[in-house]
C-alpha cells in the first residue's frame, strides 16, 4: 500500500484513539486454547487494563448483560459467560492503573438515576477523572424478570427513558459548583454554603428529589458513550453522547458513510460536527506477513466457530434447532422458519432469513463449503487482519479521511490478546504520526480530545484544544 501524503487528506493531524473491550460474553472470545485464561480472575482484568495503558489506549471498557443468555428456554452453554459488575470491577482497576479511561456499560432501564449517577461519580473520583458510561437500554420483560420492576417498559419508551435518565444524571453531576469543597483545613463548612443544589425532577419516567452526595471530578463528569445503530439510536447519540461505538469499522466506504451520517445528525442537533468520537468495535489479527496473519485468522475462526457454535448460529438463522447435526456436512435442506423473536436471547434479529439462506446456499455451493465453513465465511464477522505496517497504513487512511476516530478492540484471547497490538501495531502507528507517543492529559475527556461536558458549555463554546 502506498503511503498517504499527510498534507493531501481532510484531517492530516488526526490521531487514532484505541479502546479495549473486555467483552466477556460472546463466541469471539476463544476459551478452548491453553493460553485462554479465566474470565473472572481479577488478575486478568488488571493484566489487560495495564497492557492497554502501556499501549497508551484511551479506555478500557466493560460490557453488561443482566440475564444469562438463553436459546429456546435453555441457558446458552457454548460461549464464555459470567463476568463481574462493571462499575465494581472498574473501581478496582482505578487503584492499579493511572491514566487509562474506565468505561462501564450500564443500563438505564433497570437502574435508577440517582443510584447509577452516584456510582459513576464515585468511579470518576476514585480514578481522578477517568470514568465513562456506555448508556444502554433494554426493553424486554425477560430481563425484567430479575428486577423489582419487572418488564414494565415498552420498546418505544426505552430511549425516552434513557434520555430522561441522562437529564437527571447530568443534573446530579452538575449540582455541585466547581470547587464547592473547601481546600482549607479550617473551613467553617465542608462545602461552601449554597454551592450544592437540591435536584428535583418530575417527568414521565422519574420523580426524584435529592441532595446529591458527590462533587464534580477533574473532568466535570463521566464521558458519555452510546452504541445504538438504529436511526433512533444515532439521533440519541447525536444529542447526548461524546463517543459512539459502531459496527461500521471494517469497510472504509461503509465507515465513512456512517461517520458522515453522524456528522449530519450532530449538526441537526446543534452541535459541532467534530463533537463526537466514532470508535467502531473491531477485532485485530496481526501476523509478521500477510500470509501468516491470514493463517492466524483461519485458526482463530475455527476456535471461535466450533461445530456446536456453527450449528447454533445457523439454527438462529434457520429458526430450527440444528443441534446434533453435522456441522462439517452440507447446509440444512429445510427452508428457514420465520418466527417471532421472543426477545429471550437478545440475539441479532435477522430481517429476512429466507434471503440470507438463499445467499448462503449459493456461496456454499460455489465454494463447496461445509455448514461450518459457511458460517465462518459469511456469518457475523468483523475485524482487520494484516501486518503491523499494513494495518497502520490502513488505519491512518481511515482516520485521516474522517471515517473513524479510532477503534474499540475486542481481543480474542484473554489475557494476552492485546500484546501484539501494543507491541507491534502501536509503534507502527506512532511511526506514521497517527498515534500519541505519550499521554498528554490525565482524564478520559482529555485523552479523547473532547470539549467540556454538554451541560457545561455556557455562552462561549469553550474548547479544550484547537
Amino acid at each position, binding site marked *: 500500500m502506498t503511503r498517504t501524503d499527510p498534507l493531501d487528506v481532510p484531517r492530516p493531524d488526526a490521531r487514532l484513539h484505541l479502546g479495549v473491550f473486555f467483552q466477556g460474553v460472546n463466541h469471539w472470545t476463544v*476459551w478452548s486454547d491453553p493460553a485462554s485464561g479465566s474470565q*473472572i480472575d*481479577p488478575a486478568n482484568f*488488571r493484566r489487560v487494563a495495564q497492557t492497554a495503558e502501556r499501549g497508551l489506549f484511551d479506555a478500557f471498557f466493560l460490557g453488561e*448483560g*443482566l*440475564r*444469562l443468555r438463553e436459546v429456546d428456554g*435453555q*441457558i446458552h*452453554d*457454548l460461549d464464555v*459467560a*459470567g463476568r*463481574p*459488575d462493571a*462499575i*465494581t*470491577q472498574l*473501581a*478496582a482497576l*482505578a*487503584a*492499579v492503573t493511572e491514566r487509562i479511561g474506565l468505561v462501564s456499560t450500564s443500563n438505564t432501564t*433497570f437502574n435508577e438515576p*440517582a*443510584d447509577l449517577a*452516584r*456510582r459513576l461519580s*464515585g*468511579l470518576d*473520583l*476514585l*480514578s*481522578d477523572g477517568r470514568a465513562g458510561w456506555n448508556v444502554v437500554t433494554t426493553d424486554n420483560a425477560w430481563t425484567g*424478570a430479575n*428486577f*423489582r420492576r*419487572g418488564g414494565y417498559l415498552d420498546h418505544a419508551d426505552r430511549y425516552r427513558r434513557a434520555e430522561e435518565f441522562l437529564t437527571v444524571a447530568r443534573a446530579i453531576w452538575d449540582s455541585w459548583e466547581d*470547587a464547592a*469543597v*473547601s*481546600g*482549607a*483545613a479550617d*473551613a467553617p*463548612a*465542608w462545602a461552601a*454554603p449554597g454551592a*450544592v443544589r437540591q435536584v428535583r425532577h418530575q417527568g414521565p419516567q*422519574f420523580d*426524584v*428529589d*435529592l*441532595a*446529591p452526595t*458527590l*462533587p464534580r471530578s477533574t473532568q466535570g463528569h463521566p464521558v458519555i458513550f452510546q452504541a445504538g445503530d438504529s436511526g433512533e439510536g444515532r439521533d440519541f447519540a447525536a444529542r447526548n453522547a461524546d463517543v459512539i461505538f459502531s459496527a461500521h469499522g471494517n469497510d472504509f466506504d461503509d465507515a465513512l458513510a456512517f461517520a458522515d451520517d453522524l456528522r449530519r445528525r450532530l449538526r441537526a442537533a446543534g452541535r459541532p460536527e467534530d463533537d463526537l468520537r466514532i470508535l467502531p468495535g473491531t477485532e485485530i489479527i496481526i501476523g509478521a506477513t500477510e500470509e501468516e496473519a491470514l493463517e492466524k485468522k483461519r485458526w482463530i475462526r475455527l476456535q471461535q466457530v466450533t*461445530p*456446536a457454535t456453527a450449528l447454533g448460529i445457523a439454527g438462529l438463522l434457520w429458526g430450527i434447532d440444528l443441534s446434533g447435526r453435522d456441522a462439517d456436512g452440507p447446509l440444512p435442506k429445510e427452508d428457514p422458519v420465520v418466527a417471532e423473536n421472543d426477545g429471550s436471547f437478545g440475539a441479532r434479529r435477522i430481517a429476512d432469513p429466507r434471503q440470507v439462506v438463499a445467499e448462503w446456499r449459493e456461496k456454499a455451493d460455489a465454494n463447496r463449503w461445509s455448514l461450518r465453513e459457511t458460517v465462518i465465511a459469511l456469518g457475523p464477522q468483523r475485524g482487520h487482519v494484516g501486518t503491523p505496517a499494513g494495518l497502520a497504513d490502513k488505519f491512518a487512511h481511515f482516520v485521516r479521511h474522517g471515517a473513524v476516530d479510532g477503534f474499540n478492540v475486542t481481543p480474542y484471547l484473554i489475557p494476552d490478546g492485546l500484546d501484539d497490538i501494543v507491541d507491534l501495531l502501536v509503534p507502527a502507528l506512532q511511526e506514521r504520526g497517527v498515534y500519541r507517543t505519550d499521554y498528554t492529559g490525565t482524564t478520559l475527556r482529555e485523552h479523547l480530545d473532547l470539549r467540556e461536558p454538554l451541560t457545561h458549555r455556557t455562552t462561549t463554546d469553550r474548547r479544550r484544544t484547537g
Partner: protein
Amino acid sequence: MSGPALRLALEIDGDGAHPAAWRRAAHSPDQLLSPRRVARVAAAAENAGFTLLTLDDGALPPGAGPDTVGRIGAVERAAFIAASTSVVGVAPVVPLTYAEPFHVSSQLASLDHISVGRAGWVVSEETRPEAASVWGRPLVDGALARARESRDGVEVVRALWDSWEDDAVIRSVATSRYLDRDRLHYVDFTADTYTVKGPAIVPRPPQGQLVVLGHPDRVPGGQLDVALVEGRDRSAIASGVAVAGTPRAFAEVEVALDTADATAEERVADLERHAPWSDRGRLRHIGSAAGLAALLGELTGVVDGVRLHPLVLDEDLPELSRLVLPHLFERRYAVRPLPAATLRTHLGLDRPANRYAAAAAQEDAR
C-alpha cells in the same frame, strides 16, 4: 479473664465516627474523596493488623448543615480498597430498602472476586423517608416494612450467589460447551413485593457466600454470619450475643483516644461544639489507649471480635496502630489476619456448601 482471641474490625467511613470529624482531620475537605486518601487509610489499617474494614453508606449525604460531607458509594470504595490491599477483609454497608437485590448480589459477588475472597457485607436499612425520593420509589414505611425488605433482599442475594455451582465453567472442548447448564440454577425467588428469576450473571463468589454482617434486631439471625452487637457495657453485650443466635458476634465499640496534642475528652468536647455524637447505645471508650486495650481484653470470651468506630480516623487510627493493637497481639487478646486466607477463614467460618449442588447430590443419591 481471657478467652479466644478477638478479630478486629474498623469502620473507616469519612473522617471518623463523629459527624464533625472532618474538622479535626489532618487534611482539607477536598482531599477526603481522593483516591490517595482512600488507599492511605486502608493501608494504615491493614498494616496495623485489622481483620476487616467496613464502609458506611446510604442514599443520603452524611452529616447535617455545615457538616454535610460528600461520600463515594461504599461498594466502589470497597472495590478500590480491595485492589490496593492484600490481606484485610473489606465489607461495604449496602441497604436493601430500595436497591435492586439483583444488582447488589452482582456487585458484592464481584467484590469477592476482586478481593479473592476477602469480602463481606454489612446489611443496613434506609431509615429516613427522604431516601425514597432519592430512589424515586414508594416509601417503605416503618420498621416492619424495612425489615421485610432486608429479609427478602438478603435471602435472594444469597440464593443468587449459589445460582452458579463452583464448577459450572467446564470448558469441555470435546463438546464445545463452556458451561454445564445443569450447574446453573434459576432462583425463582418470590419476595413479598417482587420476584427474581436468576441465575446470577457473576460466577459464584470465591468464598461461596460472602460474610454477612448485621444487627440482629433488624436482620433475622439465621441470615447473618456475624451479629453486630450493641450494648453500653460488657454484660449488655453478653446478653445481646446470647439472643443473636449467629455463628459469630462482634461488639460495636466507639473510641476516642488521648493523643499527644489533646486528651480524648478535649477532642470530643471540641467536636461537640459543632454537632452531637449521638448515643446509639454502643459501648464507648473515651480515654487512654491502655484503658481501651484493657476494655477489649475483657471482651475476649464474650464476643468473637469488635468493630471499632474511631472518633477521628486521622487522630485515633495512629494511636490504635501504635499502642492498642500491638498490646492486644502481644497479650494474645487479638490476632492478625493470615496472608492468603479468605475472610471466612479469618473468622473461623466454613465455606458453605452450595444449596443447589447439595440438593442435586441428594437427588442423585435417591
